Structures are given as structure tokens and as C-alpha cells.
């Protein structure tokens, strides 16, 4: 009886702050007695065999099926049913379940002879039941089912269906202090008629982490290990999470030490850590901070020069200043454009044939977002440009639109698609054309929630029912993309007219593909060609057969739905609005929207802390509550208050002490991965890893340009397939696949992989792409060094070489002249590059020669700075100089050292 269990209760849920033990459950009843008209649980009311009460199908019978596991996936909840009897998965489709019980060829209830009902004889194993005995004859469960059948097995959806007001769960927070402690949960359902009923025996319970606490099917919670988690209670459509905390040290609550905070973020993090008795790590060193923030914010390794300058800067404000500087760099815009392309699903394969030039749709998508990231356009404005996109401007005819678009594509055009107000390709993807697919994708992208479960059944971990899903998808059926323009006569006439002017030889055999292939050439000739367009169907409902054949004809537009409902909102008639997406967008940016701002804030947080405050970041649901609700609320509210200023969000997080903590753990937080008491080492994302290898192996001159010059950067690849016109990083396809770049198939954040794998290590250790980059070639570190370490030439040879180079320069100049005349840009660029190299060699030859390897420590330092962005420790220095001394040549030694540091864990993780 001396178990010290503190039960806390939030306001509004009744007065409960009491001690409880496993055996002391009865104490609850007395305490709750103050609440009016509260019904005792069915497990007490239905014990007497002569009970007269008639149970309700919604309130008792259906939830009891859930509690007993009857409607689980392996049993009658399976889509095929079991033994000829099917219930809706996880319940809540009362009408279907009732029909399945009371009607059909083999009803499971027998009103005429109640005791012979299958729902009484099967689960008690009186008649053979594959699922075994679920309850005993004459038990309260038996009596609930029996009384319901005896009373006529009634349910009338229109009359009997009620909306649960709320589920009151006590305690609302559990604080454990040692293993084996127990707490009994209690749940009270409140119905519209004011009825309050203890429904504890009818709830489903689960623990989000068995490591911290376990829960029985009757709601008894037992403490296991220290840490924090939630237990989740479900009844009807309510899903209620209850936090469970067990401090990891004795320094919790009032014994918690004083910890410095920089801003509100820190205060909120500490508030949680105080309960856990978890003390944050120390603040990271400048070197650790700089590498981390540079990789996180700009997807780019710092150069040795930058690192040294930062370390030497004596200013106390240098971290904040560096954050501002990085936020202003093109690499920030590029890296966060890549992330937005992930969230929105910029997938070149899904955009096949949406524009006359292959691959250009993905590039347009990227460039359109990039411009806005660089300008720091508010997030809601960017989303508006995507969600409400239409190809034609207000009042524009199809012909005018095609002309405008053609001009963008014409050679040497000054016009840019990114200057258009909106970006239509989000809706044009061919893998998300059906309203269901779009609804699921939209929920991931803009709401950070997963509603696909509700497409077929009640969401097991959230409030969404199939009905909610069906009502939500209505918003997505009126926007269409067509390769050949909208289907109205005016557009089609103009389409034909434009096509006719192109004089493409059309013979009978020619299909749409053949015509499409001719278009890029016509654009090069500065002609106007037809363009695909995104358009919105007229509001009037069309009288047509719905398209119910699923995948079989994915290109056929789905039938429009007249009614729709935003999640958690009221029904609306879509025929009252010109564009069904408008109310959706209004809802998104409404300050009361529970998801929109949070989803983005949480993703930004997740990119800095390895996990989101809600984790996975795109799975905000009732059963998956934030690890720190106050923190997420603060970030989302601030984001809204600052008019969706993304840079505000970055600054608020990055300037916190919490972000700037070291990864090195202390005695209390080594296991922490979800409460932000230290930095968590995490693998570099695919693009960042690829670019980091490039940068670590690049010449000093090249590396210095990489944060501002995005050419050939993996973070500047537009589409999902990494085949980019004009970007040499297109060769990165293999590496990016191996490192799990987002495949952008489903809008789920899980399309990107952050796992480590064998092939990644094989790539870094032995792939020719990495090895050749380490061993030399244009603009590499090895090339820089090879010049430095070149053996001394005797003066005669030197003179000869100067002459040779002089000759080659002369030849090159002639070729350059010729190529300039031919306007061969690509070749010109190449030749000029070669010329620059030769000029540099000449300079080197005539410059005083450096003594190779006099400065082995200097070389070691350089290699450390360009890979791990820090100086080596004395031990490391010694080991490395020994290695260099035993190398076959200084250059080979340097290459070996570079290879080694690239293959350390410290290189490939951000920490």
C-alpha cells in the first residue's frame, strides 16, 4: 500500500489527485461520486443474470466486439471476414456491422431464440469457434450480448447514432517512480443527453512503448523502465493519449539543477526534462556547432577557411551572425527547396508528358519553389501557389496561354516560369489523379497526417472514420490536368489551330506520342506549340457515371462530388464555390487549423533533431502525441504570428541552447532520443552526403564556390530520378539511390531513407566515383597537392616544359576562336577551362617551388578541416604524421589520409 504514485489531472476533467494501487481500485468510485448521474461500468451492471437493462448497440455491443478482439484484422475485421461473418475493422461502421449481425443468409443473432444466437454460442465455445473462447457463459460480457438480442437486437443508424461528446480519462498524467508500480485507468463517456457512463471495460488500451509502461486490456498500467511515453485509450471515435513519465535520475522536480536557457524553446524543453530528471548536455564547441548548422541549414560542409575564420572570431554573437549568414546563402534556398520538393512530391516520372520538353516540369517545380525560398516568401503563400494553381491566368485564352508558355521555352528567353503566380504540377502528377490518392497525398503534404487507413475503415489511432475520408476527398475531384488543354470546344478549337500552324506531317498512323516528340524542335524554332494545362471543372454537377474502376483507367477524370467536408468540419456544398480548393486553402491558413503550421514547424524541428516533436513527422494523430506539446504549440503559434516566415522558425530553433548542445551525453541522457537533451548523431541525407564527398575532395578554389554556386550540386537536382539536364550531379544517381534520396512516390516523409546500409559503406570505401575523386582530376584537392608535391625539375626540363605549354596555349587559342564562331557553348566552356589550367601551370612553373612535406602537420590539419571541420587532437596528429611518413610518397599519403577521414563515422554523420 505504500506505492507512491502521483496522479495528476488537467483542469476540466474532474477533480482527481489521488493515490491508487492495483488493489485499491475501489477508491476511484468514491472519488468520482461527485460527478452527476454516472453509470457504473457494464462489468458491474451486467453481472446479475436477471439484469433488465437493454444495452445500446453503439455504446456497448459494438465497443465490446472491439475490446474482445472480434473486429480485429486477424478475425472478423478482415476484409474477407472469418467463418462467413464480417465486422468493420476496428468498428465504427455501425450500420454495416448491424446488418452483418442481424441480416443476411446466416444472421449471427436470433431474436426468436436469443440463447441460440451465434454471438452467444460461438465465443463461449459452445459451438466450435476458430477464435477460441472469448468470454464465459453467464459472464457480464455474455449478459450484455444476451440482453441486446433479447431486446430485439436493435440499431437504427438515423435514430440511435449519437455523437460522443467526450471521453474523460483519469488520471490525465502518470508519474511513476519505480518498476512494478501500477495505476488503474478509468474512462467516462459523456453523451449528448448528459449521460455519463464508466466505459473502462469497453475501451481498447495500448502503450506506445512497452519499455516504459505496459497496460492490460482492462486498463491497468504497470511501470517498466525509466523514460516517458503515452498510453492510449480508445472508445467510440475518441482516442485519448495519457503521458506516462518515470524520471531517469533522482534529480527531478524540485531537485532539478539550474540550467541556462537562451529562449522560450529552451524553457519549454527544460520544463519537460525537469519532470524526467534528465539534464541536458553541455553546449557544443564552436567547431561542432558550425559543422552541424552548416550541414543542417545549407546541406553544405564548411570549407577549411570558413572553419578557421569562425573559430578565430572572438565575437560573442558569432553563432547568431553565422545563422543569419547561412540563411542568406543560395545553398539554404536550394536545400530547403529540395525538402519542399520532397514534401510536395516533385517526381519527374509522374510528370511524364506534362510539358512538351521532357523533364522540364520537374525543373520548373524546383525553380518555382527555389525563387520563393530565396525571397523568403511566406510558407502559406507558397502553399497557396501550389494548392490553388491553375495554368491559365485570369481571362487568358488557351491560345494566349500556349503563347506565353512557348515564349518561356524559346531559346535565349528572358521569361521565367518561376515568375508566374502559381505552380500547377502538384496536381498534374499521374500517380495521384484519383481523389482518394490526392486526399491521402494532400494530408501528408500539408497537414502532416496519415488518413489512408480511413479510406477503408475507421482509423485505429485517430478520430477519422471512413465517412470523414469520403467527405474529405470531395475537394479533390474538380481539378484536372490535360496534355492537350481543357476539353471544352473553344480550347479544343484553339488546340487544333495551334497544331495546324506547326505543320507537323500527320499521317493516319501517327499517335499523340509522335506529335509530342516533334514539339521540342518547334519550340527551338521559336514557334508556339500546344501545352498541357491544369484547369478546374465547372461547379455544376455533371451528369455522368462515376468512375469506379480504380486503376483500370487512371487517366479518365473522376466524377465530381457535390458535397465535401474538411477534416473535423461541417458539410459544405461544392457547387456554391467556383473552385473547391478555395475553402480548403482558407482552412489551411486559418490560424485555428490544428495541423498546417504544426506540420511544417514539426518537419523543420525534425530536420534539426533527428526526430520530430511528433515522430514520424508526418504522423500527427491522437494516438501519436507530441513528445513536448507546449514546444510544438509555441513553434506553431510563433510561425503563424510571424505570418508563416520560415526564417523566423529556423532562427528560433537554431539560436536556442537546445540546438547548440553537444552530442556527448552525460549520466542522465545517454538514452535520450526524443526529448532533445543532447544532439543526436544522424546520417547525412543522400544529397548532403554526396555533396560533402565532393566538397571534401575538391580543390580549395572549387570548394570555396560550392555554397553559392549550385551547379553540379546534388541539392539542386529537381526531380526524383536525379537525371538532370545540364547538371553534372546527374551522375550522382547511383549514390543518391544508395543513400536513400526521397523517391517522392507517395508524399510520405518515409519516401526518404535515413538508414545506414552496406552499399553506402561500400560506396564510400571503394566506389570508383569516390576513389577517383580522392585520387585526382580537375578541381580536386589531389590536383592541388600534386602541384605542390611535384618533384623539383632541373632548370633545363623546366624551360622545355614552359615552351611546351606555350605551344599548347597557342593552339588552344586558335581553337577557341573557331568554336566561338560556331557558337558551340559547351565546347567553348571546356576549352576555356583547359586554357585556365594551362595558364595556372605556367604560373606554377615560374613560381618559387614549395618544399614538399616539410609541413606534414599542416597537411593533416588541412585534411581534418576539409572533412571533419575541426583541428586534429594531438593523438590524431601523431598517428597521421606517422602514416604520412611511411607513405610511398607525400601525395599518396595525403590521398590515404583523405580516404580514411571520409570513411570515419564522424564524417558521414551530422553530430
Amino acid at each position, binding site marked *: 500500500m505504500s506505492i507512491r504514485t502521483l496522479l495528476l489531472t488537467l483542469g476540466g476533467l474532474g477533480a482527481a489527485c489521488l493515490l491508487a494501487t492495483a488493489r485499491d481500485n475501489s477508491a476511484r468510485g468514491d472519488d468520482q461520486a461527485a460527478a452527476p448521474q454516472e453509470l457504473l461500468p457494464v462489468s458491474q451492471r451486467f453481472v446479475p443474470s436477471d439484469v433488465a437493462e437493454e444495452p445500446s448497440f453503439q455504446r456497448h455491443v459494438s465497443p465490446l466486439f472491439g475490446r474482445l478482439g472480434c473486429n480485429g484484422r486477424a478475425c472478423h475485421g478482415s476484409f474477407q471476414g472469418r467463418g462467413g461473418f464480417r465486422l468493420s475493422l476496428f468498428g465504427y461502421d455501425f450500420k454495416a456491422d448491424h446488418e452483418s449481425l442481424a441480416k443476411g443468409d446466416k444472421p449471427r443473432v436470433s431474436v426468436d431464440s436469443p440463447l441460440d444466437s451465434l454471438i452467444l454460442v460461438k465465443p463461449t465455445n459452445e459451438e466450435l469457434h476458430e477464435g477460441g473462447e472469448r468470454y464465459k457463459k453467464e459472464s457480464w460480457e455474455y449478459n450484455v450480448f444476451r440482453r441486446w438480442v433479447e431486446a430485439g437486437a436493435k440499431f437504427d443508424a438515423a435514430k440511435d447514432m449519437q455523437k460522443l461528446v467526450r471521453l474523460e480519462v483519469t488520471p490525465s498524467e502518470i508519474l511513476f517512480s519505480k518498476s512494478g508500480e501500477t495505476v488503474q485507468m478509468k474512462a467516462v463517456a459523456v453523451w449528448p443527453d448528459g449521460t455519463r457512463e464508466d466505459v473502462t471495460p469497453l475501451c481498447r488500451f495500448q502503450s506506445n512503448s512497452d519499455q516504459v509502461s505496459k497496460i492490460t486490456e482492462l486498463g491497468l498500467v504497470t511501470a517498466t523502465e525509466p523514460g516517458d511515453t503515452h498510453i492510449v485509450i480508445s472508445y467510440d471515435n475518441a482516442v485519448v493519449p495519457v503521458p506516462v513519465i518515470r524520471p531517469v535520475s533522482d534529480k527531478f522536480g524540485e531537485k532539478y539543477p539550474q540550467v541556462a536557457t537562451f529562449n522560450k524553446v529552451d524553457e519549454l524543453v527544460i520544463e519537460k526534462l525537469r519532470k524526467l530528471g534528465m539534464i541536458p548536455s553541455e553546449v557544443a564547441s564552436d567547431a561542432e556547432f558550425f559543422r552541424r548548422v552548416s550541414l543542417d541549414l545549407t546541406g553544405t560542409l564548411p570549407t577549411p577557411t570558413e572553419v578557421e575564420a569562425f573559430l578565430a572570431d572572438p565575437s560573442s554573437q558569432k553563432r547568431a551572425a553565422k545563422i543569419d549568414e547561412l540563411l542568406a546563402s543560395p545553398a539554404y534556398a536550394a536545400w530547403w527547396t529540395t525538402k519542399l520538393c520532397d514534401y510536395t512530391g516533385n517526381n519527374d*516520372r509522374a510528370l511524364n508528358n506534362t510539358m512538351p520538353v521532357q523533364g522540364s516540369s520537374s525543373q520548373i517545380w524546383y525553380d518555382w519553389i527555389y525563387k520563393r525560398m530565396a525571397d523568403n516568401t511566406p510558407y502559406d503563400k507558397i502553399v497557396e501557389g501550389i494548392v490553388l494553381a491553375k495554368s491559365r491566368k485570369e481571362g487568358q485564352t488557351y491560345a494566349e496561354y500556349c503563347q506565353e508558355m512557348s515564349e518561356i521555352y524559346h531559346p535565349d528567353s528572358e521569361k521565367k516560369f518561376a515568375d508566374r503566380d502559381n505552380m500547377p504540377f502538384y496536381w498534374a502528377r499521374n500517380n495521384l489523379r484519383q481523389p482518394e490518392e490526392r486526399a491521402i497525398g494532400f494530408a501528408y503534404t500539408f497537414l502532416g497526417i496519415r488518413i489512408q487507413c480511413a479510406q477503408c475503415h475507421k482509423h485505429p489511432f485517430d478520430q477519422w472514420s471512413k465517412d470523414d475520408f469520403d467527405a474529405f476527398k470531395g475537394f479533390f475531384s474538380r481539378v484536372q490536368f490535360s496534355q492537350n488543354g481543357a476539353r471544352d470546344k473553344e480550347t479544343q478549337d484553339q488546340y487544333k489551330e495551334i497544331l495546324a500552324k506547326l505543320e507537323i506531317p500527320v499521317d493516319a498512323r501517327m499517335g499523340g506520342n509522335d506529335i509530342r516528340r516533334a514539339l521540342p524542335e518547334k519550340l527551338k524554332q521559336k514557334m508556339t506549340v500546344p501545352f498541357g494545362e491544369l484547369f478546374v471543372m465547372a461547379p455544376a454537377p455533371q451528369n455522368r457515371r462515376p468512375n469506379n474502376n480504380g486503376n483500370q483507367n487512371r487517366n479518365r477524370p473522376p466524377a465530381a462530388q457535390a458535397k465535401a467536408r474538411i477534416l473535423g468540419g461541417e458539410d459544405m456544398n461544392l457547387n456554391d464555390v467556383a473552385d473547391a480548393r478555395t475553402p480548403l486553402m482558407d482552412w489551411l491558413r486559418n490560424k485555428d487549423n490544428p495541423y498546417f503550421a504544426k506540420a511544417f514547424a514539426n518537419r523543420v524541428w525534425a530536420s534539426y533533431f533527428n526526430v520530430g516533436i511528433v515522430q514520424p513527422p508526418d504522423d500527427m494523430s491522437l494516438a501519436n502525441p507530441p513528445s513536448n506539446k507546449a514546444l510544438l504549440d509555441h513553434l506553431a503559434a510563433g510561425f503563424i504570428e510571424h505570418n508563416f516566415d520560415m526564417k523566423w522558425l529556423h532562427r528560433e530553433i537554431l539560436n536556442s541552447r537546445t540546438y547548440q548542445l553537444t552530442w556527448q551525453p552525460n549520466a542522465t541522457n545517454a538514452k535520450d532520443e526524443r526529448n532533445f537533451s543532447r544532439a543526436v548523431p544522424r546520417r547525412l541525407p543522400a544529397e548532403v552526403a554526396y555533396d560533402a564527398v565532393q566538397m571534401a575532395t575538391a580543390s580549395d578554389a572549387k570548394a570555396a564556390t560550392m555554397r553559392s554556386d549550385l551547379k553540379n550540386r546534388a541539392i539542386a537536382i529537381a526531380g526524383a530520378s536525379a537525371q538532370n539536364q545540364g547538371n553534372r550531379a546527374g551522375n550522382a544517381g547511383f549514390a543518391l539511390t544508395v543513400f536513400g534520396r526521397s523517391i517522392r512516390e507517395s508524399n510520405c516523409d518515409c519516401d526518404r531513407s535515413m538508414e545506414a546500409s552496406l552499399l553506402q559503406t561500400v560506396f564510400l570505401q571503394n566506389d570508383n566515383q569516390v576513389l577517383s575523386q580522392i585520387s585526382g582530376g580537375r578541381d580536386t584537392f589531389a590536383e592541388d597537392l600534386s602541384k605542390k608535391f611535384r618533384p623539383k625539375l632541373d632548370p633545363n626540363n623546366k624551360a622545355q616544359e614552359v615552351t611546351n605549354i606555350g605551344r599548347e596555349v597557342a593552339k588552344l587559342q586558335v581553337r577557341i576562336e573557331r568554336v566561338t564562331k560556331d557558337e558551340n557553348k559547351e565546347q567553348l566552356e571546356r576549352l576555356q577551362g583547359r586554357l585556365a589550367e594551362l595558364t595556372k601551370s605556367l604560373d606554377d612553373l615560374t613560381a618559387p617551388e614549395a618544399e614538399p612535406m616539410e609541413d606534414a602537420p599542416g597537411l593533416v590539419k588541412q585534411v581534418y578541416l576539409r572533412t571533419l571541420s575541426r583541428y586534429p587532437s594531438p593523438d590524431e596528429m601523431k598517428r597521421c604524421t606517422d602514416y604520412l611518413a611511411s607513405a610511398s610518397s607525400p601525395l599518396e599519403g595525403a590521398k*590515404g589520409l583523405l580516404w580514411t577521414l571520409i*570513411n570515419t563515422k564522424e564524417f558521414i554523420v551530422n553530430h
Partner: protein
Amino acid sequence: MAISLTCDGATRRDFLKVGAVGAGLSLSGFLRMASAGEVKGAKATSAIFINLNGGPSHMDTFDLKPDAPAEFRGAFNPIKTNVPGMEISEHLPKLAQCGDKFALLRGVTHTLGAHELGTEYVNSGNRPIPSLEYPGYGVVFTKENQDTAPKDLPPFVAIPNSSQRAGFLGVQYAPLNTGSTPRPGQPFNVRGISLSGGVTIEEVERRQNLLADLDKTFAGVEKESQLLTGLDRFSEQAHAIITSRRAREAFDVSKENPKFAEPFGAEGFGQSCLLATRLIESGVRFCSISLGGWDTHGTNFTTLKTRLCPTLDTGLSALLNGLSQKGLLESTVVFVTGEFGRTPKINQRSAEGGRDHYPRCMFMVMAGGGVKGGQVLGESDDKATMPKNEGFSPADVAASFYQALGIDHTKEYHSNTGRPIMIVRDGNVIPKLFS
């Protein structure tokens, strides 16, 4: 690598490369020893999956209809195989001589007529859905066999690359892509396996020693982090592979006995089949091979007759015979399929005519690993427009493929979103394949 364009506009890697002829050496003894003991029972322990990208015409290869009306029939005649009653195209004469080694499935049917969707279906056994990407066979196999696969070899090799996506199972089960196909008699450089950049084994060891000394930043906290533990484990295994003589020898087709290599021919596909044989022999568990170009909308008959059929005929027959010679056919199941068949009715796009996408009726081939060869299962109707009776779905064949490999296709994984997913949701094993 050359790029070819399929009709729906997606660029696809050209899976076929032609190389020069040369001679090679035989496999060293330890290579053979290493794989001994891994073969047990009737169940296959390894697999070779051959993807005929583009969708091969069933009516001109394995399901001829000589009596069909002229606008369906096509230019080719059937020939007898070495199994009475089993006939295939006259342009597959070598395969006809080893009909006893494979089972032919006719009247396989589905409804996905786009390359992308069809390919995902036949590479995973699941109809694609937008909310999730299904893992390919090799990926599932790799996951299921991760504990028994040799540590110094990549468990799953794709020659030159694969349509089998890692999907929700994650990139750690993805194949090693060779990136190109071997040339006959020449050493074959595979990214990640071969040493390059002038680095010697001795230098690799020196670097590894240095790495072991320097990679200590996280010492002490590694056990708390799955990532750091994993990186250490992978580093060890990568080192084992890179320094493994067995691995290098296995990829080096020039080490093969010229007599054994000869039937595989000089083309990239045949050489890929030879490589797959060597890899399986040395302990790699799953190989995929791709042969593209089957998207014959235009000159269907010329392309098949002069290029595709001879290539497939040579490579696949050599593979089946070669596996059999090495005693590996019983333990290696071979599965050959395209993403769909082609329209029975000949189109008029070119003078000789072509055939378009047609998923309603197609063929698949399966051999080895307990599959009973020399039989035809299923049947298409008179014009090869649909299965005559019930037909098979790609899911049924997939379930059977897993069955041969000792994997229960009804086993469930959980997707990243926590959703339970069966390995093959709608498939039923075809028992006749094995009896």
C-alpha cells in the same frame, strides 16, 4: 550506358550491351568449396530473376497460334521442343532443346498496361498502389536471408540494374548494381567490388588500420545508437567484400573456363547470364538480369527475329544448361517475365506491323529450384487474347516463386506507417509447378 526510349516516353537503361570475344581461366577451387553445404533439400536457396523489359510478345515467342486469323497470327511458326506436345517459336531453337528444364506458364493475366505499373507488379507480385511502394522479390529475399548470406559477398546483385525497388523495406536490402554488363573473356569491373584508382590491397589494409585508429570519436556511446552500431558493422562487412578474393573472382567472367563460357555467346545478356551463374556458384543468393527492348510497337517481327529472340535464346538456354552442368539448377530457381504481353491483333504502324501493350494475356517462364520442367501450365484462347480457363495472375506466380525459395508469401511486414503488409497479398501458389 546507352539509353533507349520506351513508347510511353520514360527513358530506360538499355539493358543489352555487346562486348568483344576473348578467353578466360577456370574458377579457382576454393570458390566452389565455399558454396558447398549451402545446398540443402529440394527448396531453392538462391534465385535468378530475368526481366524482359518492354513487354515481350507472347504470340511470337512462347504462345504461338498458327491457326489464328492472319491479322493475329504473325509471321513465325512454332517448332517442337524436346518435350512432346510443348511448342515454342522457331526463333528460340536452343531453348527448344532444353524444354525439359523449364515450366512454361501461359494465360497469365492482369490489367496494368503501362510499363511502370506492370513492371512494379511483376517485380513484386503486388498490384501497385499510390500510398506505398512494394519491395521487389530480391529485396524480400535479402531481408529473409540476411543471417545466412555470406559476409564477404553482396547478397543481391543486379546486372546491370534492377526494377526491383527496396520500397518500404528500406535501402539496406537494395541490390548492388553492376552498372554495366560484362564483356566476354575480359575482366569485369564492378563498382564497389573491384579495386580502382591505383589502390592496391596493401594500401587498402594500411588505410583500414589508420581508420581503425582514427575512427574513435564516438567510442563509448556507439552501443546507444543503432546508427553508429550499424555503421561499424557495415564497415567491417564492406572491408571483407573489398578484400575478398572470392568476390573479385566471382565477378570476373574472364576467369571462367572457355568451354563452359562459349555457349553464353558474346552479347551482354549472355554474359550477364554467365556472370549470374558464377555469382550463384560462389555464394551470391539473388541475381537479377535485365534484357530490354521488347516494346515492339513498330517493326515487331524483324526486331524479334534478328535481335531479341536470338539473344534471349542463347543466353537463357546457356544459363539453364550451365546451372544444370554445375549442379546448381536444383537449388536455384529461375524466373523470367516481362511486364505484359502484346496485342494479339497486329497494328499497322509499319509495313510489317507491330504489337502494342497487352496485359490481359502473357507468358512467364520458371525453372529450377524444385520447379518441374517440361510442362506447360495454363492456356490462352484461340487468338491468345485471354486465358482460356481461369488463368494465373502475376501474384500467383510470385507466390509460387517465393514458395520455391522457402518464403511464406502470406508473411506480414509492417510498413513505415505501421500498416501490416503481406509479402504477396492476393497470390495463390500454383501447386502443379512443383509436381
